[in-house]
């Protein structure tokens, strides 16, 4: 699947030919009915085609090449529209196909008695039901979505995520979810199946990607209301136009009534065909772009909602900061040197395998060029315990310890040492800056303090700046105390934070913000995030997350990268912007089409109206045909834009509106004048 996600070209030859085939299948009226505007265009094409055929045998008022050409281009208008949709779907289908390949039927070892893994029966994965427990051994394929209830294993999930490095899946905690179709590499686990066949994660992904079950989103329906109403009005305009012409021919005593072909041409040109043709493609392509970023939206609504998100809740750990704290500085107390502190800290940490401990060693070696790599054999290490709350080593008579201020104070006092008055000051200042102070002592003497710090992920600050420009407020959630949280929040540049947060606090915060009318997005992976995820408007679950978290979410991030939300927001906005700009463009086009068709149809009655023929089109037939052709070819010309989406520029709403109005509104008004004129020049070379 990896190769597909990287692919960025729109027009792949094999996709193109398939799409072309599908676009003809979609001409079936029962199928095109879903798009009422294009349905009417198709009916128009049928009528003009009949007119053309009739013109071959009977004498009609207009040249049959004209009726024929208009019919042809009307059919092309419909086909371009079905082609756009097929093309968007085709890309999704190709992805779905590759996903489906991974969903092979496997034989599962279903435990007969859930309590014992000794007895199992072999059954097909198709027959597994929710609640069944299966044993999966090294080299085996996990037969369905589920939760590890016993054991731990390395699992290769590349079939779903495209990521080849295996991940740990273990019972209990936040890494218990497994996906059907992934492969166990080592150890054995017992999995409780949580989805019936056909309802599994992969199946949902496939249906979403295929666009088969894609329901129109509320916003799409609202836009359709507008488009269909306008189309209805234009139909009446054309009927009214016919009456006006009939009356005027009588009143003026000259001229010819307007033909059915002309009326239908006028209708199709006025109807917002451009946006109506591309509307389905825009939505499907949006999902597809998300998928290309390894994000699966479980509903189109969620993507649209993400465009509206104005508050983003982020877990501190793993999202804003790297998972672990790191030592950044050694601060000596009066009477000792930095070197001494570093030395003592190094001794106290050499046997400490925690990430913090390792970071102390790294700092001591890097900054103070300490060479010591191993302790003498006589050394005795004291790992951190809940009772002592400190760790360190004893080397012969020397003891080195590090720990929280209270623990070290107690330790030193027991040894008869005293606590320098400056210590408190230093410890406080570190805590205030968001760091964690670790006090270091050598025997009964306190030497200094290690400054442990949360390290921000690279580039995170810039991303928050970008989010702010998009109008999204970031809220950091952390279990840290208020002071630490405040310091990290300030450093990362988040707008707000929630400290000492428990799961119910998250839920409450989301409810509160929603009550105030905000749209809240949240990323999470743990089971305790599930309630909050279910409450959030846009809930992104990490693919590494637990099953409850994934079920509560409406978007799954296969890369498990929490800042992915920014991409999701961007694509959500892009979909809306593309819809809005193409609607504006489509309607703005009508002005020029009026100026092409109206004078052409009226000129025989009132030659004075030639003044409205501001494009100086050659003759009435080529004028009408040019408008119809322009109306048709603008659709394929805009397919790339519809599939890629209009670029979203983070800038104030007012400016963005002005920009898009100028480009697509004013541009949409001017472009067809030029386009129609050029087409007219070409046509008049032949007739």
């Amino acid at each position, binding site marked *: 699947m990896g190769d597909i996600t990287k692919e960025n070209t729109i027009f792949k030859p094999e996709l193109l030919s398939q799409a072309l085939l599908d676009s003809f299948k979609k001409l079936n009226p029962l199928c095109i009915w879903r798009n009422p505007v294009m349905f009417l265009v198709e009916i128009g094409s049928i009528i003009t085609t009949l007119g053309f055929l009739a013109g071959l045998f009977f004498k009609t008022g207009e040249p049959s090449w004209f009726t024929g050409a208009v019919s042809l281009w009307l059919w092309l208008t419909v086909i371009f529209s079905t082609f756009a949709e097929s093309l968007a779907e085709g890309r999704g289908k190709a992805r779905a196909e590759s996903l489906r390949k991974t969903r092979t039927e496997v034989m599962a070892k279903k435990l007969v008695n859930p309590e014992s893994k000794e007895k199992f029966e072999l059954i097909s994965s198709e027959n597994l039901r929710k609640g069944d427990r299966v044993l999966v051994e090294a080299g085996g394929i996990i037969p369905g979505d589920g939760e590890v209830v016993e054991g731990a294993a390395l699992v290769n999930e590349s079939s779903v995520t495209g990521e080849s490095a295996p991940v740990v899946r273990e019972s209990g905690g936040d890494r218990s979810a497994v996906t059907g179709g992934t492969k166990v590499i080592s150890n054995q686990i017992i999995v409780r199946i949580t989805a019936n066949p056909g309802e599994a994660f992969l199946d949902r992904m496939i249906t979403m990607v295929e666009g088969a079950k894609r329901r129109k989103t*509320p*916003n799409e329906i*609202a*836009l359709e*209301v*507008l488009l269909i*109403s306008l189309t*209805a*009005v*234009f139909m*009446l*305009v054309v*009927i*009214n136009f016919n*009456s*006006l*012409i*009939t*009356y*005027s021919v009588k*009143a*003026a005593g000259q001229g010819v009534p307007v033909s059915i072909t002309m009326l239908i041409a006028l209708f199709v040109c006025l109807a917002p065909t451009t946006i109506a043709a591309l509307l389905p493609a825009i939505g499907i392509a949006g999902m597809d772009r998300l998928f290309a970023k390894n994000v699966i939206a479980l509903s189109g609504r969620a993507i649209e909602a993400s*465009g*509206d998100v*104005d508050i983003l809740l982020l877990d501190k750990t793993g999202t804003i900061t790297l998972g672990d704290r790191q030592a950044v500085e050694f601060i000596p107390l009066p009477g000792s040197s930095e070197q001494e502190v570093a030395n003592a800290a190094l001794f106290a940490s050499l046997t400490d395998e925690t990430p913090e401990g390792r970071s102390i060693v790294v700092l001591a070696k890097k900054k103070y060029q300490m060479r010591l790599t191993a302790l003498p054999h006589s050394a005795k290490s004291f790992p951190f315990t809940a009772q002592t709350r400190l760790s360190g080593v004893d080397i012969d008579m020397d003891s080195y310890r590090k720990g929280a201020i209270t623990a070290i104070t107690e330790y030193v006092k027991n040894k008869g040492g005293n606590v320098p008055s400056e210590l408190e000051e230093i410890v406080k200042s570190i805590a205030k800056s968001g760091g964690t102070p670790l006090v270091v002592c050598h025997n009964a003497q306190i030497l200094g303090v290690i400054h442990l710090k949360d390290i921000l992920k690279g580039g995170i600050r810039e991303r928050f700046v970008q989010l702010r*420009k998009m*109008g*999204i407020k970031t809220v950091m959630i952390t279990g840290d105390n208020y002071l630490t949280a405040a310091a990290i929040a300030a450093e990362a540049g988040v707008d707000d934070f929630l400290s000492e947060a428990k799961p119910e606090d998250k839920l409450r915060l989301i409810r509160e913000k929603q009550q*105030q*009318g*905000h*749209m809240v997005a949240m990323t999470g992976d743990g089971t305790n995030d599930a309630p909050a995820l279910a409450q959030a408007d846009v809930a992104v679950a990490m693919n590494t997350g637990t099953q409850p978290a994934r079920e509560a979410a409406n978007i799954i991030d296969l890369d498990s990268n929490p800042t992915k939300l920014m991409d999701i927001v961007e694509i959500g*906005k892009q979909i*809306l*912007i593309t*819809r*809005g*700009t193409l*609607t*504006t463009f489509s309607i*703005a086009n*009508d*002005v020029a089409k*009026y100026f092409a068709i*109206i004078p052409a149809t*009226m000129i025989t009655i*009132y030659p*004075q*109206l030639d003044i*409205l023929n501001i494009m100086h089109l050659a003759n009435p037939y080529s004028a009408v045909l040019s408008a119809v052709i322009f109306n048709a070819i603008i659709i394929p010309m805009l397919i790339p834009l519809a599939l890629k989406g209009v670029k*979203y520029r983070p800038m*104030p*709403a*007012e400016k*963005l*509106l002005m920009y*898009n*109005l100028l480009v*697509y*509104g004013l541009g949409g008004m001017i472009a067809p004048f030029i386009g129609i004129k050029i087409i007219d020049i070409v046509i008049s070379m032949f007739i």
Partner: protein
Amino acid sequence: MTAMEIFFDIGVMLFFLIVLTLLIKPLGTYMTYVYQGKRTFLSPILVPLENLIYKASGIKQDEEMDWKDYAKALLLFNSLGLIVLFLILLFQGILPLNPRGFPGFPPDLAFNTAVSFVTNTNWQAYSGETTASYLTQMSGLSVQNFLSAATGMCIAIALIRGFTRRTSQTIGNFWQDVTKSVLYILIPISIIAALLLVSQGVIQNFDPYANSSLLQSFQTQDGQSINNQILPMGPVASQEAIKEFGTNGGGFFNANSAHPFENPTPLTNYLEILLILLIPFSLTYTFGRFTGNTRQGWALYATIMMLFTIFLGVMYWSEYNGNPIVQKLGVTGSYMEGKEVRFGIGGSVLFAVSTTGTSSGAVNSMHDSLTPIGGMIAMLLILLGEVVPGGVGSGLYTILAFAIVAVFIAGLMIGRTPEYLGKKIEVFEMRMSVLIVLTSGILVLIFVSIALVTYAGISSILNPGQHGLSELLYAFASASNNNGSAFAGLNADTLFYNILTAIAMLIGRFVPGVAALAMAGSLAKKKYIPPGIGTLPTHQITFVLWLAVVILIVGALTFFPAMSLGPIVEHMIMNAGQ
């Protein structure tokens, strides 16, 4: 016309618009207080009266209605008004206060007239002074002048409440709103206006028609000599005030505000224009006050005023340039056909733009005689859906529907699912807005098509040719948009036109009205979304321009063919000197 005169006209119009603008805030604030139930300086007198009305009619004051109850009450109220007026018209012959002994209206005309006054249209297929008794004028037509105006204001206020209430099921109490509209707003100002009009010479009496001998006798074509004329009398001033202030426009006399007893001096002329524009413009401020951000109201004002000024300028330019054919005949000076000399071009054009821009339909000049472009402007102002600034109440709720359509597209363009004033615009709001915005246009297209292809439709056209087309178009534009003014030259008092225009008026009034209430109900239920930096600002210049463009584009796209074959062709023919 000299440069001096143009300079004078423009100066007067500018002064007028400034005075109008200065009055918006006080009246808008006053209306806000009235509808919010706050104390105003009139409360000491009116509160007891108001309570008495509630007590007498059994209205519970604090009972709130959801949109369905509100709409039911409103429709019931208007149906009753329609029936009562219909009966008065039908039986005026046997009712008192009928010094001329006019017979009852024929049923189709009575129906048309009753619908016309109940829908705030005041389309008149009859001539007041030769058809309607004093009783009909005062207790029939004038009463509806008040009530139809109040109905429009109620819908507007209900919609405003929809925007400003949060997660609320109700949108106000219709009976209370309608009482307050009449009692606190329409009656007090109408009294003052009527007194001012009387001071300028507008008549107010129940006298029989006066007979005066002519200074010079007059020979008719068949040789009869006529020595005296009949001067119609009546309680004109009281009706004139509400006719303008409620954007009704139904004249006491057939000549409407061109008649010296309705509109005797340039001063009354400007006063009447001011009355026409006052409530529609001030409601934009009321809207802003209600939403807590007056800039939202001023943005609507700016949109409307911009369009108003443009249309005014074009019509003035067209009328000033006049008709080259007439000029060739040696008539110098500005184009005065159909205009009253005491108002001049400036006073006539300002009136024409105001009366067509609002749904008033009162006239002080003959719109039929405007230059083709001038007539097209008048027609366009109506065809845009009556939003520049539109009728009392109806103008506001229509432009709000336009604003929702504008917000919808603009919102998409900035990447948000659209919201207006903190309320999400969803499928239901779009449906209702589209109904409000497009209904009148659809009616015009359908009815004009019907009239053009039926004998009954065409046979009423007195001026064959493209001007006849313009007249027909104007008639249905006027009826569907509840304006009421007319290009003369169309014999409208036929069964065909009486029924068709009545249907157009009813649908054009109540479909958008009920849609606005439904939208109010749906909006009120929604929660409020606070604006952020990603929110589309609807009080800034970009949105003002965009809203104006949306209004113009919708109108232009719907009526471009009709305009081309009507006024534009006429203009070409005129310029060609044919």
